[in-house]
């Protein structure tokens, strides 16, 4: 989130699209309800289904899954055509006036530089024209046809209301009414906020969905504003933190990137990653990259990382490609992965195409699952009847299931969606022999180190030299680890304004990443977390609820990265002269000598208004990008590409390029894509509010609230198929089938798409073959093995299925409590539904 949960209350218009906030984030949704009740805000929901969010919305419009870019580009076209943009903001704070190279083109669905063989773009032409000093050329008058804003106008020209409606299935009238409501927030004192989640990311074009909205928000002048922003509602409690800590194939902590094979030494590596100024006078904060990197190496390798060994640069593994989850499972399927570790992660249910995943896991030599719960992944080898029909005797994988503690039994910090690091405390001991992840990782590491010390082996240097300064080597305390990622001074740090004064003594905790150095005199495990545990103590444990601005900032509650800043890009909440765009939303201001206010300014504190420095200090041109340069895999502007499985079989805009040309797709998976002839309906998977992923089905309370797997079918399709409400059905895709109860509903309507009638079927996830709820089928049995081009996030939200009545379906059983070492499998036979006495037995009409 660029903003905070509470800040949603400041919005005038709230767009929930690509998400279902009421259902997936009910407590965060509190602030939407607050905005409606006390800020007269309007809530707009655009979703294939009339969701629980829609049930309290002011305006709902249906959309065909996977066509959000067509919708959003249509909105951009509308506001550009009507001139309803925040003109001053767009001119000063975006790259609207920047001139793009002549050789940049978009033709027949492809941007310039496409390499058909590799399904990849050469992005050289996706760049600004530079002057002889290497600075980007701009035309303040916006007259040059190569200006970003003019290229954008041209790009979205095709997205007329007729075209939008034809692609998305959203009736034109509804589309235009929404355009009008969104456009009204271009007024400087009105804001739009957008709440999205996996409904946008889980597409082969996911990242561009979000870009389209970000561009819209820049054009409306809503980025950096209280009540504005682009707000990703992260799915898991610490998925923000895990991403911040860089636990991804291609990342290092603080969004630094892993070195590649050709980055032969530290200098080459840093040179490629340290951005050069593109406009004069900009802050270009990522120019400090070398300081972040060297401080990381000092945190990891301590005294062993020295100038002489290039700060242990060679010990960092180099990437020949991105090893994201999809790729790794594909490699596993080819037998190229031997061992796999799942720490609190249930990939058999979480990645697409369960059958492929199951086959892949069967090819492993060993699988290690660390989890508090008995997950499906840990039992992938075990026959659980029809929902996991495998033959254990043929699976040679050694499987380890290591019990871990859970939140209540450990101490530490988590990062929420608003980037707050919040500390939590232990309430009780874990049952049995559960151990913390820290203890398990330490144990494994120390054992390996002991073996390498004793026996030697492949390149033991980084293992033997890993900095391990913990008092109890077998289990570092959360405090020790938090202090390490915050960082400390390794030599005295002098005051930059008075070189005779020591600012921070050697050995003391750092208070800001501004103190980091690239010469090995500071260590810092995650630069963006620097400031979270200072000499003043644990900032993440702060519990001051005061909110002096009334804008929902609470600056002294916990600690937010970066630098305790609550609203990102907040310099853009003031106009170039330093005056807030809206006096009622005054967050920061210039007091004559420095920037300050209720939030930590996202700007260099002593640069006065009117200076050349622009508010987007993380970009090398200082402005928000309507044109993404080379940052996206499939183009600098978002373009509508159809899902890989789509009901049309074509793309109405460019039939030759149907789906994202740069998406993550492996050739042998293409044969497992279905066609609309065989699978005529659009399937989409999602969460329900009663459950969290595949966890809460282990909680008896939640299992009782949604006990059994179901799919949602619109009344029209149900009628066509002879399916009555409550019937058992089979839903099939090219990859497999699931069985569930049909909830026949008025909330999913058939849509008219490009002259065709398109039905959508809703497939909630949450059921599987372990836990306290009734046994079900993993919903990812249906989904295709294809991912977004930038993030490799699988296309769970749009695929093709067919549906039929399951005439001999039975009520599935509740699996037996698979407490540790219970060897019986659940019997999926018929169950006694429970006899009801006369006092409860009166059947009510509520059962729709």
């Amino acid at each position, binding site marked *: 989130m660029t903003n905070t949960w509470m800040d949603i209350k400041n919005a005038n218009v709230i767009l929930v699209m690509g998400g279902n906030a009421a259902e997936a*984030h009910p*407590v965060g949704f*509190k602030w939407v309800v607050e905005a409606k009740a006390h800020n007269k805000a309007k809530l707009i929901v655009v979703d294939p289904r009339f969701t629980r969010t829609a049930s309290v919305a002011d305006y709902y419009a249906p959309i065909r899954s996977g066509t959000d870019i067509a919708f959003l580009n249509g909105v951009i076209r509308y506001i550009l055509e009507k001139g309803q943009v925040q003109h001053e903001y767009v001119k000063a704070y975006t790259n609207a006036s920047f001139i793009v190279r002549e050789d940049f083109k978009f033709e027949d669905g492809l941007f310039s530089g496409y390499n058909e063989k590799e399904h990849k773009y050469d992005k050289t032409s996706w760049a600004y024209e530079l002057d002889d000093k290497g600075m980007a050329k701009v035309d303040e008058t916006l007259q040059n046809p190569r200006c970003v804003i003019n290229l954008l106008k041209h790009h979205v020209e095709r997205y007329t209301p007729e075209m939008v409606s034809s692609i998305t299935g959203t009736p034109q009238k509804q589309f235009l009414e929404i355009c009008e409501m969104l456009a009204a927030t271009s007024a400087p004192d009105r804001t739009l906020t957008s709440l999205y989640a996996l409904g946008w990311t889980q597409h082969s074009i996911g990242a561009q969905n979000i870009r389209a909205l970000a561009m819209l928000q820049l054009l409306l002048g809503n980025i950096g504003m209280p009540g504005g922003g682009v707000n990703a509602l992260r799915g*898991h*409690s*610490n*998925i923000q*933190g*895990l991403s911040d800590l860089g*636990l*991804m*194939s291609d990342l290092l902590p603080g969004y630094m990137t892993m070195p590649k094979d050709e980055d032969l030494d530290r200098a080459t590596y840093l040179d490629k990653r340290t951005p050069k100024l593109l406009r004069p006078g900009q802050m270009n904060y990522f120019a400090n990259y070398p300081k972040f990197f060297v401080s990381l190496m000092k*945190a990891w390798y301590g005294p062993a990382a020295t100038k002489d060994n290039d700060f242990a640069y060679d010990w960092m*593994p*180099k*990437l020949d490609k991105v090893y994201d989850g999809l790729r*790794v499972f594909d490699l596993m399927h080819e037998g190229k*992965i031997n061992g*796999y*570790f*799942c*720490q609190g*992660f249930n990939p058999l249910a979480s990645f697409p195409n369960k059958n492929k995943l199951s086959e892949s896991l069967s090819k492993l*030599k060993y699988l290690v699952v660390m*989890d508090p*719960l008995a997950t499906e992944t840990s039992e992938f080898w075990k026959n659980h009847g029809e929902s996991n029909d495998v033959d254990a*005797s043929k699976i040679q994988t050694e499987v*380890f*299931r*290591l*019990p871990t503690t*859970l*939140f*209540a039994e*450990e101490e530490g*910090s988590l990062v*929420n969606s608003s980037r707050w690091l919040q500390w939590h405390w232990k*309430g009780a001991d874990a*049952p049995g*022999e559960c151990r913390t992840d820290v203890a398990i*990782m330490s144990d*494994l*590491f120390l*054992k390996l180190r002991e073996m390498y010390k004793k026996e030697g082996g*492949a390149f033991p240097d980084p293992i033997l030299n890993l900095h391990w300064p913990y008092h109890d080597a077998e289990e570092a305390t959360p405090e020790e*680890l938090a202090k390490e990622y915050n960082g400390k001074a390794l030599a005295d740090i002098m005051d930059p304004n008075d070189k005779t004064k020591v600012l921070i003594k050697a050995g003391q905790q750092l208070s800001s990443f501004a103190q980091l150095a690239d010469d090995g005199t500071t260590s810092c495990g*995650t630069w963006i977390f620097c400031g979270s545990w200072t000499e003043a103590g644990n900032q993440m444990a702060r*519990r001051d609820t005061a909110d002096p601005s009334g804008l929902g900032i609470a600056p002294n*509650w916990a600690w937010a990265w970066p630098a305790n800043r609550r609203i990102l890009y907040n310099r853009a909440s003031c106009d170039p002269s330093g005056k807030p765009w809206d006096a009622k939303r005054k967050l920061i201001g210039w007091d004559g000598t420095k920037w300050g206010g209720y939030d930590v300014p996202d700007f260099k504190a002593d640069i006065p208004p009117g200076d050349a420095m622009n508010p987007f200090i993380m970009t090398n041109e200082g402005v928000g990008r309507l044109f993404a340069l080379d940052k996206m895999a499939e183009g600098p502007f978002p373009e509508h590409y159809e899902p890989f499985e789509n009901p049309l079989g074509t793309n109405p805009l460019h039939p030759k390029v149907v789906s994202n040309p740069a998406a993550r797709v492996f050739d042998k998976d293409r044969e497992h894509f279905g066609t609309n002839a065989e699978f005529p309906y659009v399937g989409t998977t999602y969460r329900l*509010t009663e459950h969290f992923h595949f966890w*809460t089905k*282990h*909680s008896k*309370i*939640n299992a009782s609230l949604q006990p059994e797997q179901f799919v949602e079918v619109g009344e029209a399709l149900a009628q066509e198929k002879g399916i009555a409400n409550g019937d058992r059905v089979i839903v099939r895709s090219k990859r497999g089938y699931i069985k569930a109860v049909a909830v026949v509903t008025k909330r999913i309507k058939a849509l008219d798409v490009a002259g065709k009638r398109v039905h959508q079927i809703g497939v909630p996830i949450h059921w599987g073959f372990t836990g306290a709820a009734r046994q079900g089928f993993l919903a990812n049995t249906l989904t295709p093995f294809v991912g977004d081009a930038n993030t490799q*996030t699988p296309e769970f939200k749009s695929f093709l299925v067919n549906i039929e009545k399951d005439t001999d379906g039975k009520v599935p059983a509740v699996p037996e*409590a698979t*407490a*540790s070492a219970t060897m019986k499998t659940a019997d999926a036979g018929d169950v006694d539904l429970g006899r009801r006495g*006369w006092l409860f037995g009166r059947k009510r009409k509520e059962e729709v």
Partner: protein
Amino acid sequence: MKSGFRQDFPILLKGLFRYNECHPIFFYWFLSNTMQISRRQFFKLSAAALGSSSIAAMGLMPAQALAEVRQFKLARTTETRNTCPYCSVACGIIMYSIGDKAKNAKSEIIHIEGDPDHPVSRGSLCPKGAGLLEFVHSKTRVTFPEYRAPGSNEWKRVSWEWAVERIAKLMKEDRDQHFIAKNDKGQTVNRWNTVGFLAASAASNEAGYLTHKVLRSLGVVALDNQARV
């Protein structure tokens, strides 16, 4: 409940004469016509009714019991602040455990509710958060290390020492065999790409940080987390 008229009769009789409020036997007619209750079911109910009410009427039930509400169960429990482990709203929660942390008392969480101080959640929780107690005490938690041998159809309980030793051995064998120090072009790459690791999405930053540090030191590149899915 199997009770025939033989058992019911004495109670009924006693009730008839002791009861200080009239017994609604005429409801038999009423109920049996409106709710299809069988005579036997009715007698079953009224027998129980008479039984206990007569005892009350005879003064055997302590008078103050009539005014009793259920005791407040949190009076002297220990409160611990935590964060809900599900979605990223990260609601504040208070965990209530029995005992006052005295050495001889074994803590056990008996109730979890929202932390009213939390600026986002302000004490509220969603149905998942409100049911956290059953997650902590889930019957399907794993509580000791287990091992499934190749081709086997069952789990076997093992010790931590054995499990760690065995896993480390498998890892080292694999790493020693497949570690790539230099690629085809002779560039130093120092990677181990035959092992994959998925990091926990609900683990603390501290656990995540240490996990990352350890894995990269081993040369692991196939590292991912729930952020992509």
